[in-house]
């Protein structure tokens, strides 16, 4: 029997972690992520959930501790936001380099100064080049499902890279919505216990991370790219496998809405995608053939899929909630990746791309604004 509950985004992530039977959790408090670790610590202390909780002294140490746990052969989890993410970022590269398939939940928050705790995704963009798999949730249900899917893909031996599940602070973490909680047996079947190919064990001594000569290191770095690309098929496969178990298809690289005959395509990630779907309905009511495309997995980036789906469209509006100051276009990183993906298309197939920055500093993004933006251009 699937259980239905009204949960906040943070609770949903915590449920996902418990259902994944994570063995070691290390975390440091930062708004808006704190509810995730509070829920977990509470269950562990109450004796309802068998895991080790390490209340570390900094985010840098949180990531360090979960790397240590993961390399010892235990499934590990941490969560953070914003400044905390930047403080631990050195260890994110270390996690990828050490091939520790841990999961990090990121509650997006604006980077200061000035101080602001509302959702912006520029913090996430700092992790683009780390080697993490990056998933982006659009609602609480997906936040729960994504944690489980992230472990499934990250721990696959063809990937064996860490994963990040991102959800927007407050918009999801502090908002309650209906969530279907899968049965533990179904999750256990989908996600078997973590068995690493190698782990820190005195019976089989091995040295991890000692110096590497440059020519060998070149190959090692390129292997990161290959492993992340391997994850594309595995993400799709994991989504299908999950559909068989739960009857729900969640977890492709991208999600589309009314896209088949659309001339105008709205593209974004996370909660803005839900607003986009309403905006598409409104635009269609006014006779504009609109559709939407949501990037669900940012790393590996679904380059071919996007190229195929956006070829021959007239207008593509990319709504980005993060900014790279002084870069190309209006500075939206998502728009850059979309543009790069479409570069290979012929001139007759190339849509006009509009790089639109929305909701920086956690500014609200209602569907009505999206409709106005689209109508203002076409």
């Amino acid at each position, binding site marked *: 029997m699937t259980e239905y509950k009204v949960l906040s985004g943070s609770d949903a992530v915590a449920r996902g972690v418990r259902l994944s039977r994570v063995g070691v959790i290390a975390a440091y408090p930062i708004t808006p992520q704190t509810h995730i670790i509070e829920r977990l610590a509470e269950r562990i202390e109450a004796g309802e959930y*068998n895991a080790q909780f390490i209340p570390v002294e900094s985010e840098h140490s949180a*990531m360090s501790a979960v790397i*240590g746990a993961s390399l010892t052969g235990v499934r590990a989890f941490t969560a953070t936001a914003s400044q905390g993410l930047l403080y631990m970022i050195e260890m994110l590269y270390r996690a990828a380099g050490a091939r520790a398939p841990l999961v990090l939940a990121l509650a997006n928050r604006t980077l200061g100064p000035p101080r602001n705790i509302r959702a912006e995704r520029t913090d996430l963009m700092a992790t683009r080049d780390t080697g993490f798999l990056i998933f982006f949730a659009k609602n609480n249900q997906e936040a729960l499902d994504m944690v489980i899917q992230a472990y499934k893909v990250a721990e696959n031996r063809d990937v064996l890279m860490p994963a990040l599940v991102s959800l927007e602070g407050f918009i999801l973490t502090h908002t309650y919505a209906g969530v279907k909680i899968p049965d533990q047996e179904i999750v256990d079947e989908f996600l078997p216990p973590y068995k690493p190919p190698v782990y820190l064990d005195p019976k089989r001594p091995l*040295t991890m991370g000692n*110096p590497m000569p440059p020519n060998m290191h070149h190959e090692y770095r390129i292997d990161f790219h290959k492993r992340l690309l391997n994850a594309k098929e595995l993400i799709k496969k994991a989504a299908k496998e999950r559909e068989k178990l739960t009857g729900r298809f969640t977890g492709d690289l991208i999600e589309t809405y009314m896209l088949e005959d659309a001339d105008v395509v709205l593209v974004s990630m996370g909660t803005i995608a839900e607003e986009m779907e309403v905006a598409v309905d409104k635009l269609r009511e006014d006779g504009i053939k609109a559709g939407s495309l949501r990037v669900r997995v940012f790393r590996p980036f679904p380059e071919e899929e996007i190229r195929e789906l956006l070829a021959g469209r007239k207008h593509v509006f990319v709504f980005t909630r993060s900014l790279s100051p002084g870069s190309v276009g209006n500075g939206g990183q998502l728009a850059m990746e979309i543009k790069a993906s479409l570069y290979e298309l012929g001139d007759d197939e190339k849509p006009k791309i509009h790089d639109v920055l929305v909701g920086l500093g956690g500014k609200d993004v209602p569907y009505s604004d999206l409709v106005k933006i689209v109508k203002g251009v076409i």
Partner: protein
Amino acid sequence: MVEFDIKPIRVTNEELIENRFSNILKGNHACAGCGGTLAMRIISKAFGRNVIYVIPASCSSVRQGFIPKSAMACPVFNTAFASAAAVASGIAAALKYQGRDDVVPVVRAGDGGTVDIGLATLSGAAERQTNMIYVCYDNEEYGNTGYQRSGATPPGARTTTTPIKGKREFKKPVPVLMADHGVPYVATASIGYVPDMYKKAYRARRQIKNGFRYIHVHFTCPPGRGTDPRDCVGLAKLAVDTGLRPLYEVINGKRYLNGISKKQYLEPDKYMKPVEEYLKYQRRYRGYTEEDVELLNRYRDRYRDLIKRHVKYTNPELEEI
């Protein structure tokens, strides 16, 4: 408070020579006469096989040699500078979760990674009473990057970042800080007194089987000090004999001075050698002034006062070094 049974440990130099076990193998990339490698080898004899080493950026990360080879005979994870004690915390939690309580994580960090960049992490792991052993290998400088000043550099020493006047500040008393964390075991050791160092490592691993254990090992770095490789042990011995690096242990809050350091404490006039004897062999004190000697004497007295505050108990059994 962790309960344990403390017994005196007796070991001779001959026994240590006969014990062939070592976690650091021959053909490693250390400099000739490296005191740190000597310390690591002796300490690994006491720790045995069931350890997982965590090594932050330090001479030890280079000493292992290049991939695909390794000079380490035990599992090792090389980590970022400030993260060692936190990684070990994660390993300790994972081992507990797996029920592998025969294995213990051991951090092997340099003085920079311990008293400077890694201090918050070290303090956090100690405060959480993590089940691990932390060994600080203190050569009193950033040796691997070319002998820069660290928080553990003693006053008066010229380094590449204090090249003319020498460091004017005192050394950070990290073993005292660690003892104040209320952890079951803290000890200082020196490669000048090898059996004493072995005993402390043995006590940390075999007698005190739980909780956070900290050992601060002083060793000399021949290229850093500008000394002959064969003098590294003798020079470390002089650091103890001049009272600059006293040997002591803190067991469950009870503090003991060991060997020569106890004698110096009771009869300083008889056993304390003048600091000049230690300075004259080292390049970093070349051309030392009256002022430098005065500074070092003040530092020695202050450090003695710090320890004095702690030395409250004596146990004749344990003093036998």
